[in-house]
């Protein structure tokens, strides 16, 4: 565990080497191998560290590593006294971050492997650049989760934002991609603003930025159930940060657009890891949030609404990646719902399972897109089951997992969330349940549209004309399709020498299974999607709910006093609607009730599946009829509730208009003032100038004149001739010598 600092630094080294040297010199194989190797190393170290962590007693599962000082101690005013503001480069491994590094390195490693095949058609420089960014992202993400204080976390937080921006805009020649990158970045800025404010407030309130210290200090404060105290404000601002990073209402708009990036990026950053940073951050500050029940309520409501809204939008989208993107937003909403109702462990549990199945789904979709030579529109797919069995099976597993079909991972985590929210607030539960129904529906819609039915895509040449193939091979023609067109067939690199193989590769030969480097990560993630849930089998099913117990220490304050105070506070807050209510509810719902809820949710999922089957398999004409009948609703959903347009009309236009107004103000009022004062200055300067010219200069000139006239004689000595000077030197020496001779 002493070496946990190596976990982030390995990818950093990979990024550095690939970025500095790889872009110029490395072949694809070398840069790919390098990136994968660093991630494999990080994964191995993570596993080792995690196993060591498991070996510790449950109470002592925390390990800090201080790499060095970052900001040296300086005195800053805080709410109570002068605090020493000091920030070390400190990494902390505890159960929460342990789970997170496993997710990040595990999923990250698989996605790296996947990308080696997926990005095969990039030029070597772009390839190295891609892996450099990807490694850099992993570095920052690991810094984020391992950071022991707010500021180190913020470094990771900003870093992943940067990498997200770089990777979304990876194909920066494409305007939509670079625009999406900017959008993501700017939207995140709003969230970061909140985060920074929260951070300032944290330091001002507690005089430290260390998570544990903050948690301990906060644990010692009373729960703000009555009103909106400082803790609530902190939590609210932090939550604003979380909404930005995790794409919650109202800052969710960037995530769907982020799908412009390469699919592995979508899988890693915009599904499995970065977007969950918000959830992680809230969970990391669980103690703080527990002391701000109103904010918890807000979090839960925002999460639930986001889940529902995104799910409804997902119903009607046709772009396979966008469906998945909205699904991600929706699932993130679930996680916030979980944290909002105080079930932090459930949230993190869902985060973990979601990482597996969503990464799986994204990679599967990438495989599909790859097979379709860049086609992303599901309406142009269909019947792909027989062409790409591995992708189909793995994606089916992922879909079942997300739909919540037991015993797959999604079932357990989602059910835990629903259960916890049921205990907390029936209405939230209802939203969750509806969302679950919608989730099952749109996910199966995706599966059915993609893999079932008849093939609706572009036809392909059964036999490629050899000449054309050769020409294509010779010129290295890229497939002239939009979007993901850059990713051509993987076979190119294998069989470029063989004209037939190259011909096969370049004249698109119809959908086909992806190469091993892509399917193997799919299978690995599928296994994860199946088994990850078993960590959290609830007690109602005779499970141990291992993960909840494992994570619990991370959500408590630590000093005995603080714990006591926290307990007292919890007891005192029995009436609060937040965590306390959950505690209360837990005592009140029987095992049978819990089982009933489970059955209900399974039924909901099955209902969704069946509905999807009816709409998109047995009666494929139904969706259009429905869309025609509910034209308004469909348009509303299809255009994502017009949020983008709303923002455009309000925030962006408003900003522009405000800018104009300010500019006008600037020009008229401020410039006028400046001009006026300038005029005044000129007038006074003129007076001053006249004085200067005649009086002061006169004196100076007089002095100069005297010096000039006086120097006229002296400067005769300055001939500029070296020999004259030498002569004078000799004269001097002569004088000394003579003096010596005479005076001695």
């Amino acid at each position, binding site marked *: 565990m002493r070496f946990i600092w190596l976990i982030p630094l390995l990818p950093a080294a990979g990024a550095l080497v690939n970025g500095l040297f790889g872009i110029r010199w490395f072949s694809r194989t070398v840069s790919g191998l390098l990136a994968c190797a660093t991630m494999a190393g990080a994964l191995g170290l993570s596993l080792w560290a995690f196993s060591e962590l498991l070996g510790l007693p449950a109470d002592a599962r925390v390990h800090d590593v201080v790499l060095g000082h970052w900001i040296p101690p300086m005195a800053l005013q805080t709410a109570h006294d002068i605090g020493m503001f000091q920030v070390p480069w400190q990494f902390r491994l505890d159960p929460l971050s342990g789970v997170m590094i496993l997710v990040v390195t595990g999923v990250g490693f698989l996605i790296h492997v996947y990308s080696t095949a997926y990005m095969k058609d990039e030029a070597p420089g772009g390839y190295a650049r891609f892996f450099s960014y990807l490694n850099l992202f992993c570095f920052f993400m690991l810094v984020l989760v391992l950071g022991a204080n707010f500021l180190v976390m913020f470094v990771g937080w900003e870093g992943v934002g940067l990498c997200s921006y770089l990777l979304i805009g990876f194909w920066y020649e494409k305007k939509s991609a670079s625009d999406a990158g900017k959008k993501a970045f700017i939207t995140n800025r709003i969230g970061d603003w909140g985060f920074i404010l929260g951070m300032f407030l944290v330091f001002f309130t507690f005089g430290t930025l260390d998570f544990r210290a903050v948690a301990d200090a906060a644990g010692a404060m009373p729960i703000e159930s009555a009103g909106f105290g400082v803790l609530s404000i902190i939590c609210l601002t932090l939550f604003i940060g979380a909404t930005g990073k995790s794409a919650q209402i109202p800052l969710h708009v960037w995530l769907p657009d982020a799908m412009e990036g390469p699919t592995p990026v979508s899988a890693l950053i915009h599904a499995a890891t970065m977007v969950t940073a918000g959830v992680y951050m809230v969970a990391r500050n669980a103690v703080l949030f527990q002391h701000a029940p109103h904010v918890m309520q807000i979090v839960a409501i925002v999460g639930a609404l986001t889940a529902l809204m995104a799910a409804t939008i997902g119903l009607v989208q046709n772009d396979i990646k966008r469906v998945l993107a909205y699904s991600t937003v929706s699932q993130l909403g679930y996680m916030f719902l979980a944290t909002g109702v105080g079930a932090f462990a459930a949230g993190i549990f869902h985060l973990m399972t979601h990482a597996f199945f969503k990464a799986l789904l994204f990679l599967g979709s990438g495989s599909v897109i790859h097979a379709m030579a860049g086609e992303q529109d599901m309406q142009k797919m269909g019947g792909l089951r027989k062409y790409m069995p591995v992708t189909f099976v793995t994606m089916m597993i992922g879909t079942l997992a997300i739909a919540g079909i037991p015993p797959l991972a999604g079932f357990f985590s989602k059910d835990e969330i629903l259960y916890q929210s049921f205990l907390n607030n029936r209405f939230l539960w209802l939203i969750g349940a509806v969302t679950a129904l919608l989730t099952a529906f749109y996910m199966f819609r995706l599966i059915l549209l993609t893999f079932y039915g008849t093939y609706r895509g572009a036809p392909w040449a059964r036999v490629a004309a050899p000449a054309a193939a050769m020409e294509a091979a010779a010129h290295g023609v890229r497939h002239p399709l939009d979007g993901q067109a850059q990713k051509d067939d993987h076979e190119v690199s294998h069989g470029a020498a063989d004209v037939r193989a190259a011909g096969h590769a370049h004249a698109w030969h119809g959908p086909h299974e992806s190469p091993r480097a892509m399917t193997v990560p799919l299978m690995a993630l599928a296994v994860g999607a199946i088994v990850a849930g078993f960590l959290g089998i609830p007690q109602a099913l005779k499970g141990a709910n291992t993960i909840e117990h494992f994570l619990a220490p991370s959500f408590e304050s630590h000093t005995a006093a603080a714990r006591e105070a926290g307990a007292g506070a919890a007891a005192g807050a029995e009436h609060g609607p937040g965590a306390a209510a959950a505690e209360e509810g837990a005592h009140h719902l029987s095992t049978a009730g819990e089982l009933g809820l489970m059955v209900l949710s399974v039924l909901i999922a099955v209902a969704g599946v069946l509905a999807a089957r009816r709409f998109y398999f047995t009666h494929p004409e139904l969706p259009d009829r429905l869309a025609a009948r509910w034209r308004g609703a469909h348009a509303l959903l299809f255009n994502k509730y017009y949020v983008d347009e709303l923002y455009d009309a309000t925030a962006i236009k408003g900003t522009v208009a405000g800018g104009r107004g300010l500019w006008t103000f600037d020009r008229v009022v401020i410039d006028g003032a400046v001009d006026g004062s300038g005029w005044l200055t000129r007038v006074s300067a003129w007076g001053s100038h006249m004085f200067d010219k005649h009086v002061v200069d006169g004196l100076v000139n007089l002095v100069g004149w005297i010096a000039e006239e006086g120097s006229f004689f002296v400067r005769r000595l300055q001939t500029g*001739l070296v*020999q004259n000077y030498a*002569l004078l030197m*000799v*004269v001097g*020496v002569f004088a000394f*010598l003579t003096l*010596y*001779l005479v005076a001695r």
Partner: protein
Amino acid sequence: MFESILFYTLAAFILGFGVLVVTARNTVHCVVFLVANFLCVAMIYVMLGAEFLAIIQVLVYAGGIVVLYLFVVMLVNLKRGPDAAPDRRRQSRVGFVLAAVMLAEISAILVYSAARPASAVAAAAATPLQTVGNTEVVGMLLYTDYLIPFEVASMLLLVAMIGAILLAKKEI
């Protein structure tokens, strides 16, 4: 006896070549006389028991520095030397006279000193002669007590080298 003959011969040569250096019209001849002068000075060093210095004199001065002079003289290769131009300031005569007087003065001082009773310095000279000029001693001094000046000198040479390259380069 032998030493005296050698010394006076060498001194005559040194001064004679020196005069020629200072007076010769042709620059190349000047350089040649300078080399001869240096070689004689090297022999003086040998007489003074400073063999290493003598070798350095020949190797660096005669073999290196003066080659540079010759090189430049040949490159410049003037048709009409600047000394043909009239000396407008008549300072050469002044300089000449001054130098002569100073020489007389110094010689006077030296003769006077020699005539004085032996000082501590002279007493030291009375001790039996031993070879002090051998290479090992110089080397030891250079690399121990005078290491810093030595390094400074090498740095100076490096700087001079770079500077000379920059100066002589056509376009930088």
